[in-house]
């Protein structure tokens, strides 16, 4: 992930600086929270807690230090705290059960795995819209090249070329994950 230091204004609680940090990391933190909690509403709460707690702890962050792993720790802890709180609730309305199915199965994911999901999210965001659409249909929806071509109304050759470019980009931008996993 591209290194970024904490803006001084964030430490001061300046609204513009807080917004800039959210725009830089907000979707990333949301992905981490959603992965931990499996619920949109709880993830939103976790994101708010993450940024409030980050501001409160900002004095402990070295100015030249990358905020991403630091935020990953705070986001993970905020999400786990919410998960523990929800687990203590004795009664759930039937309408809430779907949202809590996944949160009940959380097994304290590592900071590293949470950091990785953020890195993947950033790499995908850096793709072009066309490439991102192909990657989503292929991996998230599980479609073949031919099915992706039909869905998007484009030639299968175009799907293959977009897919190839996107995978090269992902492999290159996420190489640090493979290196840290010891895979080739």
């Amino acid at each position, binding site marked *: 992930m591209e290194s970024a230091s904490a803006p001084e204004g964030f430490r*001061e*609680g300046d*609204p513009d600086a*807080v*917004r800039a940090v*959210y*725009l830089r990391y*907000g*979707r990333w933190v*949301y*992905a*981490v929270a*959603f*992965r931990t909690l499996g619920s*949109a509403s709880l*993830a*939103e709460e976790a*994101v*708010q*807690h993450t*940024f*409030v*707690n*980050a*501001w*409160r*702890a*900002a*004095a*402990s962050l070295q100015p030249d230090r990358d905020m991403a792993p630091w935020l990953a*720790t*705070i986001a993970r*802890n*905020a999400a*786990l*705290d919410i998960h*523990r*709180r929800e687990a203590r609730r004795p009664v759930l309305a039937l309408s809430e059960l779907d949202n809590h199915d996944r949160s009940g199965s959380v097994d304290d994911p590592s900071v590293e795995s949470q950091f*990785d*999901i953020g890195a*993947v*999210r950033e790499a*995908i965001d850096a793709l072009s819209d066309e490439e991102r659409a192909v*990657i*989503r249909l*292929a*991996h*998230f929806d*599980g479609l073949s*090249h031919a099915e992706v071509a039909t869905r998007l109304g484009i030639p299968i050759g175009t799907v293959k070329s977009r*897919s190839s470019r996107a*995978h*090269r980009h*992902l*492999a290159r931008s*996420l190489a640090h*994950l*493979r290196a840290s*996993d010891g*895979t080739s």
Partner: protein
Amino acid sequence: MIDDELTDELRAMLADPATWVEPPPDLEDRVVGAVVADANQTSGNVSTLADARRRRSRWWLGAVAASAIVVVAVASVAVTRGDSHSGPFEAALTPTELASSASGTAVLDRTDSGWSIYLDATGLPRLDDGWFYQAWQQTNDGTLVPVGTFNEGSDVTLWAGVGPLTFPIFVITEEAADGNQDSSGRVVLTGPILATP
């Protein structure tokens, strides 16, 4: 292969809904509003050792007289403001670099005897043999009131004689049993105490 350059782990993450979810557009404003409100409310927090040490020098100065003033002030403010939200209040605790893997929550409930605090913290190693953890509540201007000591952070019950509206910041420090009643300033966890919906 469509994805022969990707590892199994990367493929799994690309198939994970968390990779593709989008936060609602209004979350940006909610986050900015929450941080700015907290910044306005708690300017002067004790998340750094240096800050804590600066406060330490002024905090225990003239301890008896200051304590009397604080007790009177807290009592009068608590009566006038009532700490009227009788609870529960909750603090989501954020670690400092002294305990970067720690986390926890403190839930405060008002009783006739005072504020009962249920603390559940993880990632804090047990302290004993002359060392212990101490919990505090702090005002926005840095005044600390001790609310109990413990060895391990899980399933701890503490008691406070001050309310979360007047002392809205929860702090946990490492302390040595050396007779010095001052805070060491070695903050391991801290967080704002907020009223729960």
